């Protein structure tokens, strides 16, 4: 079979059994792989929402038809129900792990049950072996990977959890290939609840390519497009993602001290330009990636990966901290302990405002860079103030009687773009199927960066349709699977071409978009069953009630109601945000 291997392995950790399944041509055509196929399989396995940490909950690692082929195709999509939000959740990670799974002869893993003691899965030559992981339980993600590589072979790729996942912190990450993270949504806690420490994959199975000549030609064309594009060919390489610090700050929408202000006075000192001058050792790349946005850095004490844009903000401006080395070291610690940096920083920001407001007198204080490492570590082990920080911002703020101080959507912390500065981004956050996330529809691209066209960021006109379109395209890219950064250089027609040369199947742009719509709607259906509706498609009151007094986003509020009904209409959902029968019929759901 071209593209896919046609084999997905189901593992029941309670019983220690494995079984191969072929989802069939129709499911592959309608959902591709990755996020799409993962969500389809998850919804079939868990039609009634389960407690995310129960043994009955399913956890899936999926590759896509493009995995292991063209540029940026090493990624993996992890799918389950999030312990942070209770929504369906897929979390994407770079590195090589996806390519390694494919090389090991499978398209993905479906994991259910709970092992009686710590285990890891060894995937090789199409077979999955359940191995004892007692020796690795308690180790951080770096030591775990090193130890498992010694056992499984140095050419393997390992995805694992650290102490945070073992302790079922609801924003625990899954780390692979050293420091790449399936960060958002806490799927590391789902692994921990299953006593699953890691998955190691290796193998040399080459992906069958339908049109080798076309593949070669397309690869060089996309390579040229990436090279020619100033973002993928230059800016991301030289300055990494943190080049955005100054850009977003200059637009007055760089969230500062838990989104109370939109300008951080020390932005320059924590910018990508500054990182390049001070901490940067070298750029780093994922599987077959010509971009290389990763940053390998060092401080006086340590070296590691990051910080990238979201992290430099989460531990920087968001907490009133401008000590770049402290931010980097908190990032390294999150990588080692296996924590999502965005939710960690978002929760700390909430905690600091709670402390200032007198709602948590013993809570962390603004600007205390010297205690960042302690807070992060305590969170992973759920001790000291970390016992409360490990709740995430929504539960923490509710417990402390000030729920409005959690900057979250559906329980997931909002990242580094204040929605008052970009109305489309506000709608994107509010309607994201996994909560406060910028990756479902990255409206910052047109509203701030001018990609692929420039739009007025304060206007709501036409934003509903565009958010839905961006959400659909993102779902396609996450199902194929490619890196989103390729979208700066090429568009959906190129993705269709990539799928054609690899799989031999012709996908029109329209068919790909309908796949994206199907995936998005299926996710929505699951969330509706889990009790989510219109009331959850919203933002914290701060964004509707409070205005910045300075900067170019001053005197602005989010105008969600101007867009939400139109968005539901575009989607074919009813006014409560539930997909209508006719929509489901059109999408074959």
């Amino acid at each position, binding site marked *: 079979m071209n593209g896919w291997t046609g084999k997905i392995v189901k593992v029941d950790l309670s019983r220690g059994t494995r079984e191969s399944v072929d989802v069939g041509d129709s499911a592959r055509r309608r959902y591709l792989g990755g996020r799409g196929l993962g969500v389809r399989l998850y919804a079939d396995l868990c039609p009634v929402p389960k407690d995310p940490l129960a043994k009955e909950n399913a956890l899936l690692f999926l590759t896509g038809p493009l995995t292991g082929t063209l540029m940026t195709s090493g990624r993996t999509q992890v799918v389950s129900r999030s312990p942070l939000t209770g929504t369906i959740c897929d979390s994407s990670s770079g590195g090589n792990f996806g390519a390694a799974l494919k090389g090991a002869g499978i398209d993905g893993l479906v994991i259910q049950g709970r092992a009686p003691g710590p285990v890891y899965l060894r995937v090789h030559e199409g077979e999955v072996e359940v191995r004892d992981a007692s020796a690795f339980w308690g180790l951080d993600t770096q030591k775990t990977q090193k130890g498992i590589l010694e056992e499984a072979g140095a050419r393997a790729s390992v995805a694992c959890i650290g102490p945070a996942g073992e302790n079922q912190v609801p924003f625990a990450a899954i780390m692979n290939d050293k420091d790449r993270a399936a960060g958002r949504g806490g799927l590391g806690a789902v692994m921990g609840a299953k006593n699953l420490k890691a998955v190691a994959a290796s193998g040399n199975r080459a992906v069958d390519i339908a049109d080798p000549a076309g593949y070669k030609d397309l690869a060089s064309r996309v390579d040229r497009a990436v090279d020619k594009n*100033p*973002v*993928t060919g*230059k*800016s*991301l390489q*030289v*300055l*990494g*993602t*943190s*080049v*955005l610090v*100054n*850009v977003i700050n*200059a*637009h*007055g929408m760089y969230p500062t001290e838990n989104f109370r202000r939109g300008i951080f006075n020390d932005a320059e000192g924590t910018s*990508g*330009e500054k990182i390049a001058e001070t901490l940067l050792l070298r750029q780093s790349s994922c599987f077959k990636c010509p971009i290389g*946005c990763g940053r390998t850095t060092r401080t006086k004490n340590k070296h590691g990966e990051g910080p*990238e*844009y*979201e992290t430099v903000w989460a531990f920087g401006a968001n907490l009133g901290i401008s000590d770049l080395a402290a931010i980097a070291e908190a990032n390294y610690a999150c990588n080692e302990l296996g924590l999502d940096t965005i939710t960690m920083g978002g929760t700390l920001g909430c905690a600091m405002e709670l402390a200032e407001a007198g709602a948590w007198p013993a809570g962390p204080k603004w600007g205390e860079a010297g205690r960042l490492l302690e807070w992060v570590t305590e969170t992973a082990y759920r001790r000291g103030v970390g016992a409360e920080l490990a709740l995430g911002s929504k539960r923490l703020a509710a417990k402390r009687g000030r729920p409005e101080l959690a900057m979250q959507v559906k329980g997931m912390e909002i990242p580094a773009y204040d929605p008052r500065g970009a109305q489309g981004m506000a709608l994107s956050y509010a309607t994201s199927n996994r909560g406060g996330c*910028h*990756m479902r529809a*990255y409206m*910052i*691209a047109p509203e*701030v*960066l*001018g*990609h*692929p066209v*420039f739009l*007025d960021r304060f206007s709501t006109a036409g934003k509903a349709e565009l958010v839905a379109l961006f959400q659909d395209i993102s779902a396609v890219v996450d199902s194929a699977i490619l890196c*989103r*950064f390729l979208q*700066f250089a090429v568009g959906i027609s190129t993705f269709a071409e990539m799928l054609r040369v690899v799989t031999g199947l012709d996908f029109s742009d329209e068919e790909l978009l309908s796949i994206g719509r199907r995936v998005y709607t299926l996710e929505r259906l699951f969330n509706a069953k889990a009790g989510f509706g219109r009331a959850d498609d919203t933002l914290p009151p701060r964004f509707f009630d409070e205005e910045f007094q300075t*900067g*170019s986003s001053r005197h602005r509020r989010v105008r969600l109601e101007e867009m939400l009904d139109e968005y539901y209409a575009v989607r074919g959902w009813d006014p409560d945000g539930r997909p209508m029968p006719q929509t489901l019929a059109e999408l074959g759901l």
Partner: protein
Amino acid sequence: MAGTVSVKFYGLMRRRVERTGLEVPADGVTVLALLRLAEERAGRTFLDELLDREEGLLTGTIILVNGENVRLKDGLRTRVRAGDIVDLFSPAGGG
């Protein structure tokens, strides 16, 4: 002497010009004229980081006058006054 406009360089622009900003004596000129004056004053060319060969803004170029994107004003014909702050970003992305 007439007042000045503050021109600030970010990202790749900054590496090209090897400075974070400069003061350009100008008042009432267009952004395009200001950029040419800034090039002269910096002793470095940098317009090709921002503009295409027809002197149109490249996709992704951001020029802010007092925080407002010139694409929402008169583009490169937007007039700047002494005391204004002009931020220049060559195309950038992240996430």
